[in-house]
């Protein structure tokens, strides 16, 4: 597996205290990696570092020559009132070459094909707010895909969606990964997402552990990642994380 992006001892800071400390990891060709950690653990900064939009104050980030990386933001950060249709969102990422505002016939076909591929064909003329949560997520995945990347980074792709949509998104990403696309995502969801991925990075300002879920989702690593005790059960060979918060006594 050749490395697409490799971080060596990277430290990142936005002026004040470092957000990410001495982090080393790599994303190989065909990787499917989940980055987990509590809020404020540096997950989004790690993605930005991989993307190259944040420069480390120490350490290096190496990228394979000519690597194309695409980014799918959290849907919560999107301005859903913006006057833009699904097709217009997807097309805005086609930047190279053509300068005219309207798409060429080939571009229109390409957008149609990507939307079909993601199961939202025929919705190109809809306004972005007139879609379900899962469809909204797919629009931004489509925008990432028309840039023909080798690596896609997704920030919390399943935050705030229902169980069924979460399954759909996960399966879709697995399919794309099966077709050769490297995928890395951040997630809060240990059991619904992280446990299903082949490779995990546990982050709390530094890398606490990385590897297969069964090796990483252990009480020790999880406690050091989240700062709270957690129990790990085994369900048919798959780790299931249970947090040990005490039951809240009912008020009488």
């Amino acid at each position, binding site marked *: 597996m050749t490395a697409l992006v490799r971080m060596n001892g990277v430290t990142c800071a936005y002026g004040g205290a470092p957000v990410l400390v001495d982090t080393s990891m790599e994303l190989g060709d065909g990787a499917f990696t989940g980055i987990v950690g509590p809020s404020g653990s540096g997950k989004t900064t790690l993605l930005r570092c991989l993307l190259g*939009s944040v420069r480390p104050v120490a350490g290096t980030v190496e990228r394979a020559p000519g690597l194309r990386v695409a980014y799918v933001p959290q849907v919560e950060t999107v301005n859903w009132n913006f006057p*833009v249709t699904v097709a217009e969102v997807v097309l805005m990422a086609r930047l190279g070459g053509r300068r005219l*505002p309207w798409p060429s016939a080939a571009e229109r076909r390409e957008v149609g094909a990507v939307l079909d591929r993601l199961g939202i064909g025929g919705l190109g003329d809809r306004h972005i707010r007139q879609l379900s949560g899962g469809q909204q997520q797919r629009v931004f995945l489509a925008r990432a895909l028309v840039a023909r990347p080798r690596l896609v980074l997704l920030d919390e792709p399943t935050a705030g969606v229902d169980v069924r949509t979460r399954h759909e998104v996960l399966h879709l990403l697995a399919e794309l990964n099966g077709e050769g696309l490297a995928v890395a995502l951040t997630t809060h969801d240990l059991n619904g997402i992280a446990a299903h991925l082949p490779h995990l990075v546990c982050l709390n300002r530094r890398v606490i552990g990385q590897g297969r879920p069964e090796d990483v989702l252990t009480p020790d690593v999880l406690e050091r990642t989240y700062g709270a005790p957690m129990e790990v059960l085994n369900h048919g060979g798959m780790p299931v994380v249970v947090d040990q918060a005490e039951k809240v006594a009912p008020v009488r």
Partner: protein
Amino acid sequence: MSTLLEPFEYAFFRNGLVVATLAGALCGLIGVYVTLRGMSYIGHGLSHAIFGGAAASAVISFNFYLGAGLWGLASSLMIGRITRRRLIGADAAIGVVTTASFALGLALLNRFGQVRQSLDAALFGSILGVTSTDVWLVLGVTVLAAAVVFLGYRSLLFTTFDPEVADVSGVRTARVDAVLLAVLAVAILATMKVLGVVLIAATLVIPATVARMLTNSFGRLLWLAVGLGAACGFVGMMASYHLDISSGAAIVLVGAVLFGAVFAVTGPRGLRQVGAGS
């Protein structure tokens, strides 16, 4: 009918009408980006800042467009830097830079200005001083703005919609921002005579907002805002002549009536599209 056509006998009115229509279209076009990026206040401030430059040039008998233009460009770059760096609240910073510049302009005109009329004209717009040079200037700036939007359509849309992702997708967002601010400054400068310093912001905001209430597609929004802006400029200028009110006020009032009419048809649904209350 003959009363309607009467003003066309005057060259200054024909010039004024062309300038107002073009200025409406130009401000409608740029206004789409200004409103969607939440820059309305920058537009408002920039026109006030440019007024300072205009007054200073008048006092030292320097070319109006050159002096006010340099002043406006410098202010827009300063505003751009302040907004990007987020050193202090952007709105506060803009308030300080632009109102100080406006106050300086007022002070200069009070102290050294000749006639009170020129101040009124600068603040509220007048067609009396519009020459054929002004027509060519507004035409040139309109063509320039159209070319910037045409050639940079996708980068501009991407940066306006989603600046962070545009940045990591290879769009030079800092350059896009600077170009947009510069075009805005030049547009304000060119349309200032007819629209007036105080009222320019409304011609940036109204056509884009009304258009937004009518469509969900960005492409259609651009065309609509340009068309509505031009219509407001044309109708407003006619009203200005017949009702004997300042051109800037007439154009803005026509826009306000249009807003009211569209709101009456679309109701709260239209306002929701603009983003109010959600």
